[in-house]
């Protein structure tokens, strides 16, 4: 394992994946919070024609030109979406869908044209579709690092502005913030994140890197700072583990592996995160149901006792079951464990009976007095 980490190629790949995780994690948070998760999808698909155009201009697989092309066409597609929604009656989802498919179609046409052209240096251009970590060079890391760093710096500088515009753009406008400019800045940053991830994950799956870390991070924290930090961490974890696995096992593509890794983190977060996780919610529901059942049975016993004018009234189990329409024995046993009821017999009957203890009587009276909905 240690030898693995010493490998030059794997080091490069891991660093690239880490940069991708950080930038897409951080920038994805704002996209997700602004309900623009699918914007990443459109931007990344729209990067494909830019990649091809960049290649055609440079005449070789020059990464700088290619990424610049991807950024330009990605941003152009975002602009098209904006215009479509502003000028026509199209809703955002429809506009995103149109921009995505049109630009991806153009991209594929260009790609096949280049591949058919017999240019020897085009080799590997299609790796941008699904990503190819092994193709990343040390020099590429500088570009990825520069992009990531400038995006992080922008987020740091405009932190409160981005937060307010994401939360309440109307109020931000009333304060005089240039909301449109800030939104354009945030969208551009998502395009930057896409560009960073293109080589690693590819255009098809890049959207997962924008959406997934943010969604997973949101499960664990209640603050924007926490969410952004965690998203960067999750993105890095997924990126590095996916990249390392793909670099060590022959024949496994990097992009899909990274996406699978972040999906696993999302799944764990959705199920296990305290407070928001599904497991947590079902646990809470069960506890609530049990508590409610306990309160109902307690208050039935209390009502019976009051009706008979006898604090120690012994209620027959069968009667309680009939009254509640469901077996109550388990609930009674739970109440017994809390010392609120006690099993008794009532001669000459041989069937099980239950009565309120002193504590149970007091508790039932408290529930009875408490206002509706107060379950403390």
């Amino acid at each position: 394992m240690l030898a693995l980490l010493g490998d030059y190629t794997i080091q490069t790949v891991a660093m690239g994946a880490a940069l991708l995780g950080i930038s897409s994690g951080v920038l994805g948070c704002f996209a997700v919070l602004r309900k623009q998760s699918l914007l990443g999808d459109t931007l990344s698909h729209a990067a494909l024609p830019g990649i091809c155009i960049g290649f055609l201009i440079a005449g070789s697989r020059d990464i700088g030109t290619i990424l610049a092309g991807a950024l330009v066409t990605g941003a152009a597609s975002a602009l098209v979406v904006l215009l479509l929604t502003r000028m026509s009656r199209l809703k955002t989802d429809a506009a995103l869908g149109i921009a995505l498919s049109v630009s991806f179609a153009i991209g594929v046409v260009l790609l096949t044209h280049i591949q058919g052209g017999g240019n020897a240096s085009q080799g590997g251009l299609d790796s941008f579709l699904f990503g190819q970590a092994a193709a990343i060079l040390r020099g590429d890391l500088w570009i990825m690092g520069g992009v990531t760093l400038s995006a992080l710096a922008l987020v740091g500088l405009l932190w409160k502005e981005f937060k307010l515009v994401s939360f309440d753009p109307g109020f931000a406008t009333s304060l005089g913030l240039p909301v449109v400019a800030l939104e354009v800045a945030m969208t551009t940053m998502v395009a930057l994140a896409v560009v960073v991830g293109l080589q690693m994950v590819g255009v098809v799956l890049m959207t997962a890197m924008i959406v997934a870390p943010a969604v997973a991070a949101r499960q664990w924290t209640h603050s924007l700072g926490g969410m952004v930090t965690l998203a960067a961490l999750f993105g890095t974890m997924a990126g590095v583990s996916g990249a390392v696995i793909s670099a060590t096992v022959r024949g496994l593509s990097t992009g899909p592996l990274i996406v699978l890794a972040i999906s696993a983190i999302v799944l764990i977060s959705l199920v296990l995160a305290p407070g928001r996780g599904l497991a947590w919610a079902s646990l809470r529901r069960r506890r609530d149901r049990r508590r409610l059942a306990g309160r109902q049975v307690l208050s039935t016993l209390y009502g019976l006792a009051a009706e008979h004018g006898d604090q120690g009234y012994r209620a027959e189990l069968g009667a309680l079951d009939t009254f509640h329409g469901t077996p109550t024995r388990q609930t009674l046993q739970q109440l017994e464990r809390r010392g609120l009821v006690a099993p008794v017999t009532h001669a000459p009957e041989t069937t099980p009976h239950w009565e309120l203890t002193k504590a149970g009587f007091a508790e039932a009276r408290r529930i009875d007095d408490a206002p509706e909905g107060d379950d403390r």
Partner: protein
Amino acid sequence: MTEPLHEPQLALHVEDLTVSYEGKPVLWDIDIDIPPGVMAAIVGPNGAGKSTFIKSVMGLVKPTAGHVRIFGRPYAAQRRRVGYVPQRSTVDWDFPTTALDVVEMGLYGRLGWFRRPGKRERQAALHALEQVGMQDFLDRQISQLSGGQQQRVFLARALVQQADIYFLDEPMAGVDATTERAIVDILHRLRAQGKTVIVVHHDLQTVRSYFDWMVILNVRAIAQGPVATVYTPENLRKAYGGQIALIERSTFADDAAPAGGGRD
């Protein structure tokens, strides 16, 4: 500020305002003047353009024609004197932030670019939360607040703006009676300090007990002035049309009674 003041004696002066949406007028040729120091209700049926009116005053909606002045100047020059409470439903309350943080947002305009809120902003926000009775919830994630508590947080965010004129869009929508009472008390306190409070209000029943000024709106400005003179069956019928039959019986019934006006 080279531009001469236009109607500076008025807290809000709206002239010939027309706002249209997809070719249809939402507000048509509106003239509205509201003097300083009153608490004014903007009422009207659904779709009358009440929220659009506030939004166009705040510059959130571009008017087709007309102009708006606040204490004699355009809104852009008077931002510091204006506090705004949008409709609660316009934001996602699952946003990862706390009540205190939301209130601090009211100070972002004053802070300026790049500066983060510090101790002073925190103190101001705490004070505003105390005013609305939410000091115990300052670190609470906003999705865990009830609707009424969220509304109070929004109100606190406007209070922290220390404005001279406040615009509130349906602050009493979907809150319980206790919260409504608390909100009205705060607004009355603002009026007592000489501030102008302008509220989009949906409940005709409470207009007379809460407000001293009212504007009846239904695409056009139907009537405006002190509640005592404007709150008449004719004006309301003009705005609400047939719907008024329902309202009329309950709101004007106590006028007929000898001890009228003693409600509330």
